[in-house]
């Protein structure tokens, strides 16, 4: 996971661990926008994302001593945020997902590449974000963890509580849901025959 566009805040973290309010302010100032955006992608509403951002930073105060300075701070922060958002979603049970690790519906075909290519070509970032809001919580969370915060398959597996080998299934299924939401094209999402 790459670090943010700013240098590692080693000194600020050390001071924050010592209880320096100014250092906390600096960390918040530097990382709150990214965490808010993470939560905004992962949670259903803007208000949820605002609450979650504040709660993540509140949690951070209690967890900062667990942070290992040899690892990127932003990566650790995203894990805290992902954990919080996933807990929030699970508690609410907004939408029942396929929680089991079944692979009955796992598409195995070779989809029509040109059709998929066209769909991607025609869709804008804004449309993707809109479609993201229509996904189930696990699909959404998986995509956000993977494509927003660049978490590894192992980290995603830890957060979602699934086997590492199943993460690919979750992600591919999430992509299909997204395509469905984008196009309403079930055939494409299921993987058309070549």
């Amino acid at each position, binding site marked *: 996971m790459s670090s943010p566009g700013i240098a590692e805040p080693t000194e600020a973290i050390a001071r924050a661990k010592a209880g320096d309010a100014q250092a906390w302010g600096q960390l918040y100032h530097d990382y709150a926008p990214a965490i808010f955006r993470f939560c905004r992608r992962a949670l259903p509403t803007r208000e949820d994302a605002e609450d979650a*951002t504040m709660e993540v930073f509140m949690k951070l105060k209690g967890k900062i001593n667990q942070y290992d300075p040899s690892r990127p701070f932003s990566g650790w922060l995203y894990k805290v945020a992902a954990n919080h958002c996933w807990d929030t979603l699970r508690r609410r049970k907004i939408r029942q997902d396929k929680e089991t690790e079944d692979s009955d519906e796992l598409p195995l075909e070779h989809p029509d590449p040109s059709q998929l290519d066209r769909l991607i070509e025609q869709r804008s970032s804004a449309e993707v974000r809109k479609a993201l809001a229509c996904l189930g919580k696990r699909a959404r969370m998986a995509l956000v963890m993977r494509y927003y915060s660049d978490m590894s398959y192992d980290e995603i597996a830890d957060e979602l509580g699934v086997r590492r080998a199943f993460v690919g299934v979750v992600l591919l299924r999430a992509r299909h849901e997204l395509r469905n939401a984008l196009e309403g094209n079930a055939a494409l999402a299921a993987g058309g025959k070549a």
Partner: protein
Amino acid sequence: MNESSNNPDERLDEHLDDHLDEMTGMLYVEGQLDRQRAQQVSAHSQECPSCRTLLRALERESRLLTRAMLEEDEPLPSRLAAFQQSAQKSMQWIWGAVFGLAATGAYALYTGYVEPMQQRFEQAGFGGSSVLNLMIFQGAFWKGWQSMLTLLEVLALLTIAGSAVVFLRRRLRGRGSVFAMMVAGICAAATVPSPAMATEFRNQGDTIEVGKDETIKGDLFAHGHHVKIEGTVDGDVYVFCQGADIEGHVTGDVIAFAQMLRVNGKVDGNIRSFTNTTWVSGNIAKNLLTFAETVNIDPTGKVGGSVTTFLNTLTIDGAVGRDVLSFGSEATIAGNIGGGIQAQGNTLKFNSGAQVAGPVKFKGNHAPEVSSGAKLAIPVVFTQEEHHKRYEDSGFYVWRVIWTAAVILFGLVLFVLLPNFARSTVDSAERYGASFGLGVLVLFGVPIAAFIACITVVGMMIGISTFILWMTTLFCAQIVVGAIVGQWLMGHTRETWQLIGRMVVGVIVVRVLGMIPFLGGWVRFAVVLWGMGAISLAIYRHFTPPRTVAVPASPVMPPSSLPPNTTIGSPQPA
């Protein structure tokens, strides 16, 4: 590679002698295959155009997802921006101290300015009433207080509505609902019937006349080169012109912006004028308040109430029912004054025939001249104006200290109540060119704009509110500059209380520099320009949609995670 197995692990063990399935393609694109399998996929894709296209499409899909996720489509909400301060520490105990200190500051303000002014008005014989009483009930200054009360009611309603919106924010999803609610509220307020009002506007031609036999029921707004009222206006008169003659009868007030105002007729209300010359030969039943170069009340002229003037030359040959308060260069009294006189200026003369029923106090450069024919109830109390003596007076320094403390306390309250805005203002002050430039514009432009706004009835409320805001900004300028100077001396900080500490040091430095003879005036002027500009810049930024703070760059770069010899998104392999 269409296999019968649904197990992703098993699937990967199959030979790549058919098309790639989507899962394998995605894992390859994501760099999740081991090296051997990735090489198989790579080799296959070099020979199979369909699989190459699939891999490219999956790769583009990954990029689209990353781009959609990372795009900064909305700024950090203000609630989160404010959270930083509230999360830092509990401020409960501070509030008591702040309000205590603010009360001390308010007391200093009252004893320093309000009380002396109140005493001055009382000494001037305004019926022994308080300033508040005078302004509100006697309407000595402004008839629009009723409108202000209405404005306050509207503001109160808006405050309640705003609180309700905040309270219900969680239940109102999206800005559209809030906006719709506000619009609905405004529409509802607008539909409330307003009292019937007959108002006549006249601005046609160079000369506007109200004929002798003409009667206007309601207020009259007249704008032209010359305005002449010979008939009757059963209401207030607002005139904006070069010359105005009131020879008829006005039952309400007259508010005039004119080079020359002549009152030969009868005005049942007050006259408030901003003129070069005001002549009163007729009868004003209530009070006269004027900002002018010259004011003459002729022997036939009569003012039933008080006369308040800010001018160069005042001559009273006629009668004034109550008190005279005059700030000007020369004042000459030859008429009958029913109350007392409070005057400040260069000279004060009482000619033969002058009669004054109340006390006379004069503060000026020369002793008052009292003719032997003048009849004064009490001898004039004269105070010689003493220039430059204030620097030798210890009281001057005591009050300087008190005022500095008051400014600091005021700044403390502002910084604690509005920490984000205070920090933003101090940041703005560091943009020296923009602050000074905007400061010049605001210092001179806003009062002019407020004055122009006052020309209209509705605009009068806006104009006066703007002027009050301008005055507040003028006062706050030294606090902002003090914070900057403090940061110069003690280093930059983002923490509120450390910034307050720097503000305290800076304000003291700025006020000491402002006391230096000759140079101090320029220092104060520069402080006003700089501070007002910074505050205006911060206000402008506050009401401008914020730009998002720099955030982490794209953390996902799929191409870098691809195995060697990949052909995804690049020219087709040979």
